């Protein structure tokens, strides 16, 4: 039988040295933002019951989940997301705590991916959840936290803002079933104008149909709100649009200019999100690195109805980008290698500690001879070798 002894499963990887330093650096900066904003850390189990993720609005398909069974034959999954476990936790362990609660996490999630696409099946995510609060203040707290977190690790980014109710309100005005609505949603999500037009051409012309036809192209600055207001006038989407405008106007006081844009075609996981939604992009990464929004229905699935909003950041993607930046170095090569002659080992170790305390990067040589230590230093590009003990004299 072939043994898979020396390789890791597809979509996973080892992180070595500079990769870890870069990851710690990125995560540390984000963590500092979260902590400063008053979010408290939680860790949930790496494996959970399948039921936690199969609630109706979870938006995670069973194909994506890695499954296993426990010792009673019950179905478990390797955590594919952190928000659902946190909803479970809040609804049970924090049931009687003072609301709202601010939580953050930094943990890996696992998603099965189509083979040979180069996508990661295990990736680190950091995110926050603000549970038990609704309204403008809560939404602005989440959005500004997200913007601070992204600003802490990247300068060239875009945050795009949408609202789940815009599409929902428009689609509910049509005489279509859930399946047809989903087809329309998918074609908006992928900005597939031709598929969307085909679907809408089959429907009775109406104000809502005309508005939906325009949704995928409605992204950009404040002008988008005006265009949309014009198109959606008299439909149920109006109040969501007005709210979006309020959010946008508030965020514009941050002076980020075109880094914050509106996208009314942002309809990802529309059964999960109930209010504002947003995604963040960083130049150099081909996918959204941050996604989030308001999900007021989810906690009801755990019998604890209350509003909640949050977001998750794909920190691995940011780490990979940082490592490809030639201007950033995570080299930890020491300045000095300290060799101990026989019997002087403890003396040398003390010398290393003293050098480090003085701010010089020193390491204790564990090689048996001075010659080998010198050869190693030369090969690694370590400038200086100090010998401690009798040969010194």
């Amino acid at each position, binding site marked *: 039988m072939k043994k898979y002894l020396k390789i890791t499963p597809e979509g996973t990887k080892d992180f070595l040295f500079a990769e870890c330093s870069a990851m710690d650096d990125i995560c540390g900066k984000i963590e500092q933002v979260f902590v400063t904003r008053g979010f408290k850390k939680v860790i949930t189990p790496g494996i959970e019951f399948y039921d936690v993720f199969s609630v109706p609005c979870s938006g995670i398909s069973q194909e994506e989940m890695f499954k296993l069974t426990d010792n009673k034959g019950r179905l478990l999954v390797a955590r594919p997301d952190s928000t659902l476990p946190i909803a479970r936790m809040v609804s049970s362990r924090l049931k009687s705590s003072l609301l709202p609660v601010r939580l953050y996490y930094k943990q890996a999630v696992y998603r099965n991916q*189509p083979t040979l*696409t*180069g996508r990661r099946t295990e990736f680190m995510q950091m995110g926050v959840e603000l549970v038990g609060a609704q309204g403008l203040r809560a939404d602005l707290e989440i959005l500004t936290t997200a913007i601070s977190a992204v600003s802490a690790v990247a300068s*060239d980014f*875009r945050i*795009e803002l949408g609202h789940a109710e815009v599409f929902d309100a428009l689609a509910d005005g049509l005489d279509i079933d859930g399946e047809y609505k989903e087809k329309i949603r998918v074609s908006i999500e*992928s*900005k*597939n*104008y*031709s*598929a969307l037009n085909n679907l809408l051409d089959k429907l009775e012309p109406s104000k809502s149909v005309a508005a939906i036809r325009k949704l995928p192209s409605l*992204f*950009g600055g404040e002008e988008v709100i005006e265009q949309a207001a014009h198109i959606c006038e008299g439909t149920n989407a109006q109040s969501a649009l007005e709210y979006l405008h309020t959010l946008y106007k508030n965020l514009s006081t941050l002076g980020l200019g075109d880094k914050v*844009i509106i*996208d009314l075609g942002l309809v990802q996981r529309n059964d999960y999100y109930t209010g504002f939604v947003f995604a963040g*992009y*960083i*130049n150099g*990464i*081909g*996918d*959204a690195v941050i996604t989030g929004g308001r999900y007021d229905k989810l906690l009801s699935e755990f019998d604890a109805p209350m509003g909640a909003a949050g977001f998750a950041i794909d920190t691995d993607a940011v780490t990979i980008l940082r490592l490809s930046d030639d201007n950033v170095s995570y080299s930890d090569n020491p300045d000095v290698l300290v060799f101990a002659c026989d019997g002087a080992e403890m003396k040398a170790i003390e010398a290393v500690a003293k050098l480090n305390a003085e701010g010089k990067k020193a390491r204790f040589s564990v090689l048996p001879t001075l010659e080998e230590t010198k050869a190693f230093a030369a090969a690694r590009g370590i400038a200086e070798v100090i010998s401690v003990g009798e040969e010194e004299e």
Partner: protein
Amino acid sequence: MKPLRIALTKGRLEKTTVELLEKIGYNCDEVRNKGRRLILPVGDNDFEVVLAKAADVITYVEHGVCDLGVVGKDTILENGSSFYELLDLNFGKCRFALATKKDSDFYGGYNTKTIATKYPNVTRAFFDDKNMDVRIIKIEGSVELAPLVGLSDGIVDIVETGSTLKANGLEVIEWVTDISARLIANTASLKLRKKEIEALQKKLEAVTQ
């Protein structure tokens, strides 16, 4: 800033796309005289063209190493997942069809049917919609051969004129879907470089619709 990078499907789609680009005023001499090069500048370095196999166009765009791509709807249906499909370019038109040997009763009987195809995902989705269990066998070359030698009951394949089918005693019993060339965009690129991409999209729209 780097020029926009567009991945083109090598072959016929590439030729027509180059003609379109010239029509909207971009100098494509470098692409026409490409020799063995795979990355070529267009116009006054307005953008770069990359030449790739159809499925690879999608891969390059999905991973964001190319901002835009021109690829057939057939490839999108078979391989696609997350990118924006911006424009139907209205060329490279053909259709997916289910074909069988002439006068055979494909939907009759209770036995599970076998389908040979180069497009297993398209085939799977088509029969899933009908709630029909079929056995799918992936074939790399001339799919028409499979029903003739008795490997399958039918085929799902791209049909342009239908003459290959006819010459081999096969007939189309159902059209699966229409196909044409599409302009696709990486999701992040469209957000980060909206103006450039929309300008190009508008120009292409004007000459293809």
